């Protein structure tokens, strides 16, 4: 892993992410007994959005979203370049903060609620993600993604609890049920459209593309748990994604209290037990 993989992420991740999104919609449609859109539909959507007017409530509101876009790419690039995992997580938080601030800046009640919920979502996934970094450090002795990826055994064998906590918060990052509180993917809505209520046109296209980047980045983090063997890693990443779709289609959205409490408790119990196990192992 080096800056080349980081650069590769910058250029190819949107295509991979867009395909994953298309695939997602197809599978979801089939699970619901529909035919579903073509695989390339997400690209058509974004293409159309790019031609639309950029409507804003407050001037400079879209700048926050654009910064979110840039920082998301930066986060992923840092990760795929094999950088420091903690730094990657901080950068991810910074991107999230800018996205939320864009929602606040719009000064519309619905995007305000969405922004609050976006922050709540960040607060919900942050412990599990940081714990994943801590666990990986305890096993491999390094926070560097390149070193972690080169560990000879599948990390999930030593980090089952932490992996579970990580999987538990994945719907947040994928904006999927039961944790799609701040804004939702699907035809059903969440308090109008949550944080993206006042985002439109080109800016909304950027949010979509940033989301594709996030798809690849988050799946990349999942891959780390199985990174000892590339085929195992790829297969398991696919399985993770499939499971996520099943969860998405079989659960209803929960209240924010339930999201926060459950994700914190799962991270505390599963992650804590896992850390205890690692400590006793030595």
């Amino acid at each position, binding site marked *: 892993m080096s800056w080349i993989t980081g650069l590769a992420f910058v250029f190819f991740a949107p295509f991979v992410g867009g395909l994953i999104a298309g695939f997602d919609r197809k599978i979801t449609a089939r699970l619901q007994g529909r035919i579903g859109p073509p695989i390339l539909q997400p690209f058509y959507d974004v293409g159309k959005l790019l031609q639309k007017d950029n409507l804003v409530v407050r001037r400079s509101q879209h*700048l926050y979203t654009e910064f979110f876009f840039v920082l998301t790419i930066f986060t992923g690039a840092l990760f795929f370049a094999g950088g420091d995992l903690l730094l990657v997580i*901080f950068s991810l938080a910074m991107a999230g903060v800018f996205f939320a601030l864009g929602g606040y800046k719009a000064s519309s009640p619905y995007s305000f609620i969405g922004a*609050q919920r976006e*922050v709540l979502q960040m607060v919900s996934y942050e412990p599990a993600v940081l714990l994943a970094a801590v666990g990986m450090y305890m096993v491999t002795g390094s926070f560097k993604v390149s070193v972690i990826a080169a560990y000879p055994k599948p990390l999930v064998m030593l980090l089952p609890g932490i992996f579970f906590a990580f999987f538990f918060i994945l719907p947040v990052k994928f904006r999927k049920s039961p944790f799609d509180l701040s804004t939702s993917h699907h035809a059903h809505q969440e308090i*109008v459209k949550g944080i993206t209520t006042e985002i439109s046109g080109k800016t909304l296209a950027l949010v979509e593309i940033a989301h594709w980047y996030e798809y690849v980045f988050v799946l990349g983090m999942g891959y780390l748990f199985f990174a000892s063997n590339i085929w195992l890693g790829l297969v398991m990443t696919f399985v993770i994604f499939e499971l996520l779709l099943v969860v998405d289609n079989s659960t209803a959205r929960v209240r924010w209290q339930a999201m926060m409490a459950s994700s914190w408790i799962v991270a505390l119990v599963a992650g804590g037990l896992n850390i205890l196990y690692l400590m006793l192992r030595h």
Partner: protein
Amino acid sequence: MALPLLAFLILFPLFIAFLVLFVRKEAFFAVIIYPAAVILIVATCFLLGLSAGGSPTLIAVHAGWVEPLMLVVEVLAAIYLLFLAIKQRDWTVSALVIIQTVVLLGFHFSRAGEVHTRAELFIDVFSVMMGLVVGIVGTLIAVFAVGYMRDMHHHQHEIPDGRRVFFSIIFLFLSAMFGVCFSNNLSWMFFFWEITTVCSFLMIRYKGDATSVKNAFWALRWNLLGGLAFLIGIIYLCLTHHTIELDKMLALPKAWVMLPVALFCFAGLTKSAQLPFSSWLVGAMVAPTPVSALLHSSTMVKAGVYIVLRLATSLEGTFVGLIVAFVGLITFLICSFICISQNDAKKVLAYSTIANLGLIILCAGIGSPQAVWAGMLLIVFHAVSKGLLFLCVGSIEHKLHSRQIEDMSGLIIRLPKLSVMLQIGIAGMFLAPFGMLISKWAVLRAIVDFNPFFALFLIYGSTATLFFWVKWLGKVITVEKDYKNEETGISLDQWIPMGILTALTVLICGLFSPFANILIEPYIVALYGREVTLGAGNMLIMSIMLTFIALFPLTFLPTRGVKMAKPYLGGANVGDGRQFRDSLGGVKPMHMKNFYMEEYFSETRLMRLGVIVTTVFLAAMLAAGGM
């Protein structure tokens, strides 16, 4: 060369403190304080030129009159406090004052001539770093106070104008802080330590109303208790090891000095308002804002963490160290949680100050090179950003006549410059790649090696931090109504300190590497014989992130192809799009309120929990130190 400079730093503020007592006209405060501030800042910068290394340069003061003078001052201060306490019928404080004075006098007269001290003062990079914080951040806050107090007395006539005494105490305090930083003789340090306690007491009661006086006595009580622990520690050290010098104590084997170290830590915990003592600092927020910034955030409470961090090598790997670390960690976690439910901006700052001090105490308790490195970073970054935030909130309060965060909506339009400074201050507290985040990162690395379970607590605390800062930041940029720019009448002596602190917040982050190399690295190397870094590659990435952030304001310059629209309100928009027609045909304005989650993060419940847990652990610490 070192002695004259240190003497100047301690005596010059004392001279100014004396001088301002004779000011008859308002304008003369500025005439005295501005030049004094410039001189003090320049003198502090000379500290850097002393080429102080990591190991202490000891400085002997050949003046026999100093110690008797200190004793006289201590006794006079005690009589004054006793008088006030009896008048207030605060028997706990009265008892503490009497006990402390009796013990102090007994100690002085029984051991007179017994202990020979070779060096009263010392200097090394750590004390230089503290000196810079006191000299630069502290002095800037003093300048800010000139303008702030002028505004305050023009607006609030019910508060008696005691500004001569006020500024006198501010400078007396600065002098005492320099004393704490550079004392090697522990009884000297104790003297300066007690002076800061008295200053804090007098400043909290400045407004003179019942609440202020009550809270002042409450603060005094805990600080006196800490002072007593400090004193007993010195006496014990003197009786068992025949020394009262800091450097000699640190050179002794850990096991020999466990009790005095535990007692000094206890004193440090009270001074830095850790749980279970935190309530005094929250109460101290009744004082005028510059006081909160100077004493209760940037400098005085740092004296507490300074002494504990000094003892880090004696704490490393001991039971006392473990407890100290745990108390700091619990304080960080609980106070960060409490911040979520607070709407009063000053209270958020107070709790977050306690939380961050907890983080430094945690580092000291761990005592590993990485931890001490992170702790020292935290002291500096926190002093600058938090000082800035307090000053901003002070000025904002004067303009809005409220310091509720909920009232700060639209601040970006009403007070644009102030709000930008506030935003930079907040970003400095939690956002990558600013100082506090670098430090938290370093703490996390240190803590995982120490005890991964501690990391678990840290992770939750740090997540809470993210939450309350973002929602404050969001409130500032949300525009609820058609606001006007109200940013007039803020004097230059408020703008300049805030401007410099804003610049410093960004600068120290950008110049983080050289800064750490000059002021932190030598201390760690001298102490542990090895270096600590975050890695050159990571530093590069941090600078890239800082550049990103720095570029963000530039994107505001040109307004590009966007179309303005009205917000969606779930009904027909009326007027400027901030009102809508509801289903019954009435016109309703929109409101936006933040989450506070009182039912989950209630101040009273969390505090009670924290006090109980930490009291038990502190008792265990003192017991373990005694064994």
